């Protein structure tokens, strides 16, 4: 492969070339591997490259395709996976020094499913240590250092799926797998100018993934387009008896629609998602909604219900994280984490009572009903992806990137699907995004809305300046 432009093609276009045998999976994999080896360190994007496994998978894909056994649109497509997903024989560090030498002798369900689809794993993506579960004060809270934003390497990618976002934005792989408990797919996609999909809770099995908060963790793709995200979701969704929270057969599967939705999505424009957002971002999100309105989407203002939703979400993350990492906290090995906040926050988490945790779970029950009523009137609700653009690598996140996020709290507490897509660039040249959320199990609505937007805009086709 000599054409670097092809490296930024969406999965759907790469797949068409592979299917027609105009593009070799072996060549494509080799090119992304070389690019990842050369450019990955510039962004602190990877923990490990899985070159041997990738080459074997690419050769297998090529043999199968030549033999006429084409598995589908991910066949022969390279990708990266966040380093909290178990991959047989390779280090799975959870981004954290205490687990730097951890290995598993099995593949996570998501990895198995992508293998089955013929996708080619080229590396384990860098991440915030323990997916940020213990809290963090600085972008450097990672075994591999701060992930650097391809649009400006003095800026951060956001977390915790930091490497996954950097990899896709820099054209080191066409898609990557990330996870979100609260913001860890949507924020990196917004900061890095890519598309991030947070599926409905339970649609994608977490078996073989590091647990942070059992009742809130989700796995989803970061990709170039909503269409690509849908293709990946189709491959990784499905019931799994090994994940206690997996949706049952008939609900967990996802089938990406190739045509337009039956009717333009009805969109609720959230007026209280962010207390204070950059005027540039507000204008970009408004302009994005205008585009959708011009293409037939009815749009009306809507407010999130008021209540202690973020408080409930925070309590749940804290308590479930304290349980998930009980050994780490009690042994004192949390002191080996990089971030000063992460080193001590677990001790604070452990002071929450069972009664308070149950109160949070009961508040969740109420919230589920309240938020669901919004979707009687709207197919999706929309807001700016983040209220700010990417922060600098040195920013103290605890003091200088501290703002209310009721939409993130509500969406994650209730397991709602969401997608983030780029919708412009700031005067400083940094990406800005918009997010869409829908009723549980209606992942198709957020994808359809984002696809419609991307069919009529070019923001997702912008590439960062990457020096040779």
């Amino acid at each position: 492969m000599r054409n670097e432009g092809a490296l930024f093609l969406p999965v759907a276009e790469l797949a068409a070339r592979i299917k027609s045998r105009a593009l070799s999976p072996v060549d494509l994999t080799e090119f992304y591997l070389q690019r990842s080896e050369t450019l990955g360190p510039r962004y602190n994007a990877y923990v490990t490259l899985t070159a041997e496994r990738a080459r074997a998978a690419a050769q297998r894909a090529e043999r199968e395709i030549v033999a006429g056994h084409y598995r589908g649109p991910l066949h022969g497509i390279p990708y990266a996976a966040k380093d909290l997903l178990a991959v047989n024989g390779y280090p799975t560090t959870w981004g954290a020094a205490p687990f730097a030498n951890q290995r598993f002798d099995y593949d996570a369900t998501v990895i198995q499913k992508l293998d089955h689809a013929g996708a080619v794993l080229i590396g384990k993506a860098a991440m915030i240590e323990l997916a940020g579960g213990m809290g963090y004060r600085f972008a450097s809270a990672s075994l591999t250092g701060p992930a650097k934003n391809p649009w400006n390497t003095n800026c951060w990618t956001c977390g915790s799926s930091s490497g996954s976002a950097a990899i896709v934005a820099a054209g080191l792989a066409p898609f990557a797998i990330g996870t979100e408990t609260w913001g860890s797919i949507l924020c990196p996609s917004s900061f890095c100018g890519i598309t991030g999909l947070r599926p409905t809770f339970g649609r994608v099995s977490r078996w073989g993934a590091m647990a942070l908060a059992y009742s809130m963790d989700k796995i989803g793709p970061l990709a170039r387009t909503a269409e690509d995200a849908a293709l990946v979701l189709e491959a990784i969704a499905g019931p799994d008896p090994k994940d206690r929270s997996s949706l049952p057969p008939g609900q967990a599967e996802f089938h990406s629609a190739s045509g337009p939705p039956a009717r333009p999505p009805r969109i609720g424009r959230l007026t209280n998602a962010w207390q204070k957002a950059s005027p540039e971002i507000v204008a970009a999100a408004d302009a994005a909604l205008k585009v959708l309105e011009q293409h037939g989407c009815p749009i009306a203002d809507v407010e999130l219900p008021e209540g202690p939703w973020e408080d409930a979400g925070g309590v749940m993350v804290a308590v479930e994280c304290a349980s998930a990492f009980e050994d780490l906290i009690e042994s004192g090995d949390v002191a080996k984490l990089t971030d000063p906040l992460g080193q001590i926050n677990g001790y604070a988490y452990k002071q929450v009572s069972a009664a308070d945790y149950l109160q949070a779970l009961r508040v969740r029950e109420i919230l589920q009903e309240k938020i669901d009523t919004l979707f009687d009137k709207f197919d999706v609700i929309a807001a700016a992806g983040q209220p700010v653009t990417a922060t600098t690598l040195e920013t103290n996140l605890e003091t200088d990137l501290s703002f209310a996020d009721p939409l993130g709290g509500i969406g994650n507490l209730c397991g709602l699907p969401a997608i983030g897509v780029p919708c412009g660039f700031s005067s400083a040249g940094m990406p800005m995004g918009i997010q869409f959320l829908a009723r549980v199990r209606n992942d198709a609505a957020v994808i359809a809305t984002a696809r419609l937007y991307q069919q009529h805009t070019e923001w997702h086709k912008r590439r960062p300046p990457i020096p040779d």
Partner: protein
Amino acid sequence: MGVFAQALAPSAPAQQPAAEKLSAAGQLEADAKTRYALATYGSRLNEAQKKDLGRLIKEAVEPLEELRKYALKNGVQPATVLRLYPEPHALNALGERPGKRGGT
């Protein structure tokens, strides 16, 4: 909320000093929790970390107070489920797990 929501993507409400927002009971609760945490884990921490831990615990009590204020009727159940184990498909017609014998 800071201590909790610093997790993941670092979004959390803008802070004012937690001690100023806590009720008298909340302040007592924070002090007691801090004493307990320092008694349990303090030997691992330097003085700056001990002070920081006290702050984090105070900041964590404020959202708990907000959460407790939210009125809930007795019948509102927690939104978590106990999935019965084993699943029906794992059992044979006699209700036994294949390969497992009952008591001797």
